């Protein structure tokens, strides 16, 4: 009996010690995300039984795919120690132009819906590339602070989008566009999820398996060392912003297909949500650190929280408060994590 107690007394602190060191390692490797994801799922499942149904999770997966895509774009800017405040207005401008081009081409030849769709998507991608190039050149060549540069672009892009659209929804896109890019579900998986999966694979390959990706991390981690190692830091920085905006344009195209019209006010919450998703996923504001797989989970998490709050009938105004708190907490935790990583050295 007393022997057993002795064993338990040794065993319990031992187990607790191991659990806490495991949690610590998970935290250091992946940030706060794995922990909050589990807490959110368990919490919502207890509070609202409908939450854990297949249908609801299917909905969350589809609804999250847009944020998943743009968050992967946002991730690139944080990796190079920057930020993109203009992603929402990039999506809006893409939406308006995609709708305009599709409607124009379709009006010219009503029998060529696919030509119209191809032209529209092409225009959307080109706008993304141009926006990214302007952001990147402003930041990397003219040394404009990334926040200032992209806030300026936010204003410019949404001004253009509102001017082009006159502030009204833009109609006239071929119906096939929505049918395929929003509502089709090959193998039971919604089209936007397929696209998000494709973007993920490309990002994973580029970031983890190419010299270019390695250098994106390097220049975020130490731009001076990267330059001394012969990396053309300006070019890589510009390319990071171009890739970001092109990916964001993909998100804009998907959302436009989903909404069915070109909207100059599309995706206004995406900036806040994407930064929250990316930071919760452990992408550091100080550059050079972050995994694309975690970013996908982070964006999924943010959508999940929104979805859970909707099910629990949390009014949308208060949801804004929750999202803001989440963002600030994620940044605080990022700082703590950086400190802890530096302390590992002392051990």
């Amino acid at each position, binding site marked *: 009996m007393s022997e057993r107690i002795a064993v338990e007394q040794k065993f319990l602190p031992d187990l607790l010690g191991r659990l806490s060191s495991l949690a610590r390692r998970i935290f250091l490797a992946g940030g706060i995300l794995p922990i909050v994801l589990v807490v959110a799922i368990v919490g919502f499942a207890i509070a609202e039984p409908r939450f854990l149904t297949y249908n609801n999770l299917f909905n969350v997966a589809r609804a999250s795919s847009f944020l998943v895509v743009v968050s992967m774009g946002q991730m690139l800017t944080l990796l190079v120690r920057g930020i993109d405040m203009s992603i929402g207005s990039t999506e809006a401008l893409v939406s308006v132009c995609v709708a305009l081009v599709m409607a124009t081409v379709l009006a010219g030849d009503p029998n060529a819906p696919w030509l119209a769709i191809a032209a529209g998507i092409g225009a959307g991608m080109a706008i993304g590339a141009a926006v990214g190039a302007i952001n990147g050149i402003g930041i990397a060549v003219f040394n404009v602070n990334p926040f200032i540069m992209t806030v300026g672009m936010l204003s410019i892009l949404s001004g253009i989008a509102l001017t082009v659209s006159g502030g009204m929804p833009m109609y006239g896109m071929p119906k096939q566009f929505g049918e395929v890019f929003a509502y089709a579900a090959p193998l039971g998986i919604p089209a936007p999820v397929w696209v998000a999966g494709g973007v993920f694979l490309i990002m994973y*390959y580029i970031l*983890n*398996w*190419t*010299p*270019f990706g*390695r*250098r994106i*991390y*390097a220049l975020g*981690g*130490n731009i*001076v*060392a*990267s*330059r*001394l*190692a*012969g*990396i053309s830091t300006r070019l890589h920085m510009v390319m990071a912003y171009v890739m970001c905006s092109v990916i964001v344009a993909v998100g804009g195209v998907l959302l436009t297909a989903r909404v069915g019209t070109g909207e100059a006010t599309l995706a206004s919450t995406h900036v806040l949500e994407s930064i929250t998703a990316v930071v919760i996923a452990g992408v*550091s504001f100080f550059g*050079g*650190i972050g995994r694309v797989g975690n970013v996908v989970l982070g964006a999924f998490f943010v959508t999940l929280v929104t979805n859970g709050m909707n099910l629990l009938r949390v009014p949308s105004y208060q949801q804004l408060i929750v999202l803001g708190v989440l963002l600030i907490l994620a940044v605080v935790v990022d700082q703590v994590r950086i400190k802890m*990583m*530096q302390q*590992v*050295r002392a051990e």
Partner: protein
Amino acid sequence: MDQVLAPSRPAAGGTSLLKASGIVKSFGGNRALNGVSLDVHENEIMALVGDNGAGKSTLVKILSGAEVPDEGTIHVSGRLAAIQSPHDAHDLGIATLHQNLGLVDCFDVPQNVFLGRELSTKILGVLPLLRRAEMVERTKALLRELDIRMPYLDRPVSTMSGGQRQAVAISRLLLGDIKLIIMDEPMAALGVHEGQKVLDLIQRLSLRGISFLIVSHNMEHVMSISNRVAVLKNGNLVGVVPTERTTRQDITSMIIHGRV
């Protein structure tokens, strides 16, 4: 009295390895280098000394391709060399350890060793693919060859000690066919023991025929390791003297008063 002693290292051959002539570099109105000429021979260890702000790091940056001079020429093995970037210098066999080490803190050891020179293959002839396993293996081989022991390679170098970080930065230098290693204060941040290890390593590599240009404030190190000492003051070369035929006092006086 020094001449009596047989030189411990093969005497500097006198064949020019790296010859910089009339190097001028200004930052705004500030002339960091005012027409400096320097000749590093094959198979020698040259020390470069001078007060803070004398222009040592600027010269190092120019020789390593990190900065481009306003005026002046550089010859490598007798041939005019246009060193416009760190890659150019590396292709000519010049590797540099900069004053701040030039490591990416959040990268692990192999990632730092291969920074900017990642190994990759092309799949289907077009898509690049990093050879990550090979980079890890080659890093291990490199460290073994240099007799550098490191407990783990797969952690960010930010978690490592000053000496270990130094070792990573130094092993980086030996990738490729290197003839000259330039080091900007390699022992500055190190303890006595770690500093001695770096000195040993320099000596071992020098026996293999690699030349060194080493910036240091530590006169003891300078006297013990170098064949010749070059002294800079206010962007001018005061002179180059064989270590055997000079004393610490002479060099200190050159650093302070600017004359031989």
